């Protein structure tokens, strides 16, 4: 379903020290630093898998998601998703994927949620029957009926996130990318979103790739975990293997997952 082979991506970042003098200096000569966001990243994900993609901030998670979803072009390496190269067959590719960015909204700010959905229906050329059926299903599962007529700007974060998830599934994508979908949500909303994702996977065999810092998300959703640090894949396996890698699993077993992760990050020196 998804294969990434030897993908590299680097960015040029402008650098300067603090202070007005430095500002003036950088006006004439700007110093750049090349940041290697991804270095030789390879993995394959099969259809219907639920994969947690984790790593510390700046490890390259978002870059990977952006390459897989066709926003970015990698410097080198190959990547196919459902038989397509994301950045080359962009229009065809994006019809089959759904993307949720937890920190950004895809809904139109000033209009009722249902109007955003209607526009998405047009954008993705979803037929009327399919749209109605899917909308009914999503409304029921995510309990949207109360909030569909509210403008997005007046929704709480939890309500909005449920709408975001629904919006990314209206066109029934085969693959769902979730970039920190539970960030800032309360317990009830978190559970609702998690349960829903699991249900989608079970019923429609949707492939789910999830990046998060919330280890409970991983525990609840992901059957497989890919750990990335400093642009390289460091571990690929089950959550149990992750615990083992962190070392001393007897002692670790009693600790919560956040401690396991912190220990692992330190051990692998990727902070």
């Amino acid at each position, binding site marked *: 379903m998804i294969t990434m082979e030897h993908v590299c991506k680097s960015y040029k970042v*402008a650098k300067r020290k603090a202070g007005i003098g430095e500002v003036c200096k950088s006006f004439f000569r700007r110093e750049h630093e090349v940041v290697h966001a991804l270095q030789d990243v390879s993995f394959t994900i099969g259809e219907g898998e639920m994969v947690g993609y984790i790593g510390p901030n700046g490890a390259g998670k978002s870059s990977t998601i952006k390459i897989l979803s066709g*926003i*970015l*072009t990698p410097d080198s390496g190959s990547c196919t998703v459902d038989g397509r190269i994301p950045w080359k067959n962009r229009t065809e590719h994006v019809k089959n994927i759904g993307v949720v*960015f937890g920190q950004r909204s*895809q809904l*139109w700010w000033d209009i009722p949620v249902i109007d955003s959905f209607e*526009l998405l229906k*047009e954008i993705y*050329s979803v037929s009327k029957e399919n749209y109605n059926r899917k909308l009914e299903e999503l409304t029921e599962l995510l309990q949207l009926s109360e909030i569909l007529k509210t403008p997005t700007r007046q929704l709480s974060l939890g309500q909005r996130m449920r709408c975001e998830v629904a919006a990314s599934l209206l066109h029934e994508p085969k693959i769902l990318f979730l970039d920190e979908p539970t960030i800032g949500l309360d317990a009830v909303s978190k559970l609702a979103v998690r349960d829903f994702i699991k249900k989608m996977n079970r019923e429609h065999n949707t492939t789910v790739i999830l990046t998060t810092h919330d280890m409970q998300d991983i525990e609840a959703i992901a059957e497989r975990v890919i750990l990335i640090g400093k642009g390289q894949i460091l571990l690929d396996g089950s959550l149990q293997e992750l615990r083992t890698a962190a070392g001393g699993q007897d002692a670790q077993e009693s600790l919560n997952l956040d401690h396991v992760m912190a220990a692992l990050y330190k051990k692998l020196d990727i902070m």
Partner: protein
Amino acid sequence: MSLRKSISLYIRYAAICVRSIMEYKLSFVLMIFGRCMIAFTEFLAIRFLFDGLTEIKGYTYGDVLLCFSVIHMSFTLSELFGNGFKVFSGIVKSGEFDRMLLRPCSPILQVMGTRFEIGRTGPLITSTITLCLGISESQVSWNFLTAFTLLLMIIGGILLFIGLYMLGASFCFFTIEDTSILNALTYGAKEHGKYPIDVYGRGVLRFCTFVIPYTLVQYYPLQFLLGRSTNWVLGLYPVGVVVFLAICYGVWCAGVRNYKSCGS
């Protein structure tokens, strides 16, 4: 995606923009009124100038008014449709462009659609009025060919300005620097385009022909329109803007391939 589908999608995008703005009704009315007044003062400036003069380099009040109206109308319409390119750096910085690339339709359609500037209908009212005045007061002998030329000038002008906005927007892909330099060209053209370009002398005329082809939509067709030249081909010069637009589109496409995205 078929053209019909694209157009219907564009209209939907634009309709949402209009509805979003209508959520804040008072600000909408004030915006229309304010912009209408700004455009009106520009007209007054010309009116008062011709109180003391009868003509500038052979151009009468009516001629200048016609020229002003054409450029003003093109500029306003280009802002109405192409404002998305003008605020494109904001679209990139907020990560909105990432989202646009995730939609199975043209990013150009989305950039133009999400920033449909209904507020520009204010100055549009003004320029429609001045255009009517210009049409009746200029020395043009109106027939099918001259009317067609006038239409071409306006459409060519819109495309020219949109091309410039697009060029400016494309720079966002290559540099995070401010690209106000292009505002000098667009606003400059709008300001100086009020008068036929040759009143500024040959140097400016050349610059506006070979660097940024303003003269294609203004000076040359105007010569034919006002009967200063009998060569009707001059009236078709605005079509040449298509070449300029194609170049801008090429730069844009290269830019999209070079897109770096931002943040997480």
